[in-house]
């Protein structure tokens, strides 16, 4: 058994689940010990994720590496198949990083901490499972498993009395979308399997068989899949679960819920949309680009009009996810590379912003922008952190989100200059609302803050440990995004070449 035969992907997926099960049952153990155990598991998982990424570093490796396969339910083509290419490997690294961030930041949760960490870890495992599945039905299973911990994170640890309603709305919305995908998957199994052969939902095999379907069937199947992804990303008219869910969820959980989970939708659009149904994706690309652009602008405007810091961040996150979708539907190397890069960048910046907002909340007791102001004198370091994160998020050149923005707008420019011209409006709006957010809290006159915690200190050591690496990552990926794109580019180009070949029959 060589090293590469080791079931590494499976371990990366299920280690968090095992740890979560242990946490749920270990009622007798010291709670601090359990906390450090969870952190340790998250660290180990991050290391494993980097090991998964390692074959793609440094050379132009394309296609799937690693991977395990076990037969499960033959009759419907369900096999346990997991594998990674460099796109999913990067996203798994991101998820593992966010899992670590979430568990580390979640150390201070007061109620039922064991269960909280268990939910975080199982959410991490489920998201990694989504990224690693190469069987369509398995993908669907992990997709739905994600909902369970996410539901509990919102409904049990949410911040106000509306948490259960927000959680239910979140689950119903995503479920409504993904059931279409389930139907699509099963239908796909029927129509792509030659008569008499065994049902197969293996990704690569399905990808080869797709070209035999009539364009109309492809279109309907694409739409069925898109229904699930549209809600998950979310794109414009299907976002109404998002502001409440994000406003309710506790900040550590948001590291995964806002940082990693929407990326599964974007990843789905890429892997099971553009790469699976290239012809249909190209046909619907203008419509989906319009939705993505609409969401980008709409979210930015909403963030401009919102008073609550967390909701501003929620709308900004929604807005940026639309932007990522725009890159995917450019269907060219620049757009797709930029979209994946931006998923990673957004996944670093957004959780950091939510956590910084939570750090501010613990000191002031309010999220209302109109009640805050002039805080920089009081907590200059936290203010500086906030500024850097806001700047990164609004796409200041030199910080990480600019790199993704550059490639995404570049890709959409190549697809159609009109998209790029509209997209930059959103960029200007982002500058506007982020500056409004930053200045609203940290600059300007000092209002009377009755509930302000006067004794609160500037950033504590635990906060430094949490935020400094994130800020360093933000700067590093801003100065040298080629660390990511250099690894992504060969894979993305290869996939795009293959799929356009299939689609156009060349």
């Amino acid at each position: 058994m060589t090293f590469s035969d080791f079931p590494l992907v499976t371990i990366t997926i299920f280690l968090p689940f095992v740890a979560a099960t242990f946490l749920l049952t270990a009622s007798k153990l010291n709670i601090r010990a359990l906390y450090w155990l969870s952190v340790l598991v998250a660290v180990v998982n991050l290391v494993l994720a980097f090991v998964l990424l390692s074959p793609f570093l440094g050379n132009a490796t394309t296609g799937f590496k690693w991977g395990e396969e076990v037969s499960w339910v033959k009759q419907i083509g369900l096999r346990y198949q997991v594998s990674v290419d460099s796109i999913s490997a990067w996203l798994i690294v991101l998820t593992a990083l966010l899992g670590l961030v979430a568990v580390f930041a979640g150390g201070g949760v007061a109620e039922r901490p064991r269960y909280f960490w268990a939910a975080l870890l199982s959410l991490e495992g489920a998201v990694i499972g989504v990224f690693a599945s190469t069987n369509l039905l398995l993908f669907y299973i992990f997709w739905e498993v994600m909902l369970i911990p996410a539901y509990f994170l919102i409904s049990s640890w949410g911040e106000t009395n509306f948490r259960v309603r927000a959680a239910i709305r979140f689950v119903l919305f995503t479920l409504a979308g993904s059931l279409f995908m389930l139907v699509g998957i099963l239908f796909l199994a029927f129509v792509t399997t030659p008569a008499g052969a065994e049902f197969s939902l293996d990704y690569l095999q399905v990808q080869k068989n797709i070209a035999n379907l009539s364009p109309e069937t492809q279109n309907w199947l694409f739409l069925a899949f898109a229904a699930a992804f549209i809600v998950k990303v979310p794109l414009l008219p299907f976002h109404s679960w998002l502001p409440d869910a994000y406003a309710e969820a506790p900040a550590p959980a948001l590291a995964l819920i806002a940082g990693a989970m929407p990326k599964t939708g974007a990843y789905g659009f890429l892997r099971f949309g553009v790469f699976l149904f290239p012809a249909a994706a190209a046909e619907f690309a203008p419509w989906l680009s319009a939705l993505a652009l609409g969401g980008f602008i709409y979210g930015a405007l909403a963030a401009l009009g919102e008073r609550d810091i967390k909701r501003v961040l929620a709308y900004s996150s929604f807005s940026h996810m639309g932007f990522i979708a725009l890159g995917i539907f450019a269907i060219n190397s620049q757009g797709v590379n930029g979209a994946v890069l931006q998923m990673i960048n957004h996944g670093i910046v957004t959780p950091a912003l939510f956590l910084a907002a939570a750090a501010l909340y613990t000191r002031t007791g309010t999220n209302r922008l109109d009640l805050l102001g002039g805080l920089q004198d009081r907590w200059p370091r936290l203010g500086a952190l906030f500024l850097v994160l806001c700047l990164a998020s609004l796409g200041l050149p030199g910080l990480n989100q600019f790199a993704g923005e550059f490639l995404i707008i570049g890709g959409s420019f190549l697809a159609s200059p009109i998209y790029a011209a509209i997209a930059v409006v959103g960029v200007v709006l982002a500058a506007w609302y982020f500056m409004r957010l930053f200045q609203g809290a940290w600059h300007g006159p000092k209002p009377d803050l009755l509930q302000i915690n006067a004794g609160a200190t500037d950033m504590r050591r635990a906060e430094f440990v949490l935020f400094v690496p994130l800020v360093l990552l933000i700067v590093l990926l801003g100065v040298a995004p080629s660390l990511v794109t250099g690894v992504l580019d060969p894979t993305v180009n290869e996939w795009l070449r293959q799929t356009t070949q299939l689609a156009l029959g060349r």
Partner: protein
Amino acid sequence: MPEAIGLVVLLPLLGFLGIALFGPRMSQRGAAIFACAMVGLAFLAAVLTALTPLFYSDNWGSYGLYKYDWTLSGTWRVTFGLAADPLSVIMALVVTGVGFLIHVYSIGYMTEHGEDGHMHTEKDYRRFFAYMNLFVFAMLLLVTADNFVWLLVGWGNVGLSSFLLIGFYKNRPSAVAAARKAFVMNTIGDVGLLLGIFVIIANTGSASFSAALTSANLTSGDGSWREWAAMLLLIAAVAKSAQFPLQTWLPDAMEGPTPVSALIHAATMVTAGVYLIVRAHPIFGNSTVALVVVPIIGAFTAFYAATCALAQTDLKRVLAYSTMSQLGYMFMAAGVGAYEAAMFHLVAHAFFKALLFLAAGSIIHSLGGEQDMRNMGGLRKQPAMRMAWIGFTIGALALSGIPPFAGFFSKESILGVFPLFGQATENYNPRGLDPIFLSVIGWVGLLTAFMTAFYMFRAYMLVFEGPQTRLHPHSNPANMSFVLAVLSVLSVVGGFLAMPGLWNFLHDWFQPVLRVFDANAGERGVWFPIQTNGLEIVELVLGVGAGVAGIVIAVGLYTFTRQRAADALQPTLTGTAEEQQRAAEGAVQPRRATGASLLTPRGLEEAEIRRVIAGRNLSPVNKREVGLPTGRILPAAKPKFNPLKLGQQAMTAFLLYGWGFDLIYKMLFSWPGEMTGRLIARFVDQEAEKAVDYGLGGMAWEGSKASRKTETGLVRNYALGILLGTVALLIYVAVQTVQR
């Protein structure tokens, strides 16, 4: 040594990081000296780079220094790299040289009261120098980048440091609003540049200057992309250089400390637009639209800003509008291809405008934050203000284009490009522009030169002449006076870089870069050289005459007429530092009494006289004071209807508010944007949620309620159901059978 350019960029970055990370462990003075040292060393490194032509005699210009892949994707490969060529080096020299002087000046300036009326704390002091070093770093990155993408990185980051420094007095609402406005308007420029970069990459395959701007790329094809690229880059240039229509942020940017205004909003950052046009001149020079649009924008802005400056009462705002106007000159020149002249004026303007701002800064500083010129006066006679007086006078003369100051040579070299009587010869007009067009621009430039001299000497008269101010200036630290002296000398000798008819260092200096990037690498090229054959005597007389006339009229008006008293009754735009501070603290306090004995009629009269002399406005109506004997003067009788006077007042207000563009933009963009945002966030989305909750959820609920009713538990109901079902089935079968 071209490699020294790396040090030029690196040192200010180290300065910023050093103060930002280890600031609390440094003493206040230590941090300032560290920051100055970093910029000073960067200047020395820039000098070292500038000596390159001594070692490499011909065609110097290195691109792709310190190169690495920034990002790659498909066919796109964007690299980081620095350029050391005449253009980047001269910009680096100006940025680090003027930057160093202003850093030294700031050591003294920032020690005392801030312009928000509060003492600068040690923390503020360090923060200031950290931001200044960040700015210098970003600006150097902008001018030394060897490709458009890293130029954009510098471009965005100078916007950021400008934001941080405009909003330096972070608790003052007007400063906060001005900072945000500047940032957002600059972001519009950033995205213009971004789109321009895509046009360039998509059509040339590269973003680097040396690969994209080759003659093959620029002359082949139908060339429509060049028009697009030029227009998109122009958006960026216009936003950064505060040209029409993105000009409104610059006057508000004066909320920052004065050294910031001198460095960022006069000498360096705002000239980035001119730099961009010169850098991308193969695109601009080969675009037929840009050759017309850029000079028109420049000429209009020069004229517009000069008219606005006529009515300003705030000393710094006069200088801000003047900067905008001078940048308009540079755009005029760069637009028609007179790149040497534009760069000449850029360098000379950096010297004398920095001098003017710093002189104004030392006046404001020693008057305890007072910026309203009407509260100044008679400062020439104050011994403490001697150096500021000399500096301001030299700066004003240079700006007015009086020989032999720097502004004379640089401004005449620009006006020389636009023959006033349409006599453009083939030599002067390589791009074949309409001579009438050029002469119209030339006349606008001449008119602007007249207004420039007028408003500068209006400011001079208000500040230095006339009755003495009530405020008591105190003397400035020695380092401030030293910097004023150095800049005064530079403002005199800076013009000797190019002496028409005698020598022209700039022509030789820029020759390599303009030739390397020239698309039609023929004999003439796309640029105007500064005319070495001597200027036409008529134009020279007109140019100097306009300046002299402006000065004479301003001096006469403020010496022999009651204009000073009339100015005192103008509406104000910005309050005093004290008022702003009060507004910042949110407290509405009754205005302080003027100090005179107010109860007697004589006291009232005295108060009025004092206010008119000192230029105090009448206090605004304060409800609490109604009925109380206060210093407020009620008009003796209803003023007569006087259309002339009303018109004059309306005109003054129109100019004071910059032709009302602020209001227009507010109505067109900022207000609708915010209102749409509120509508979405607080209404549309909430309603959509409710629709989902109560609509879909309610439908399910009602449906389940209805179907629940069938579960009655009564056997007869179920039996009825079975019966009905059976009947229905039977009918169906019967119909099927009959049809068959």
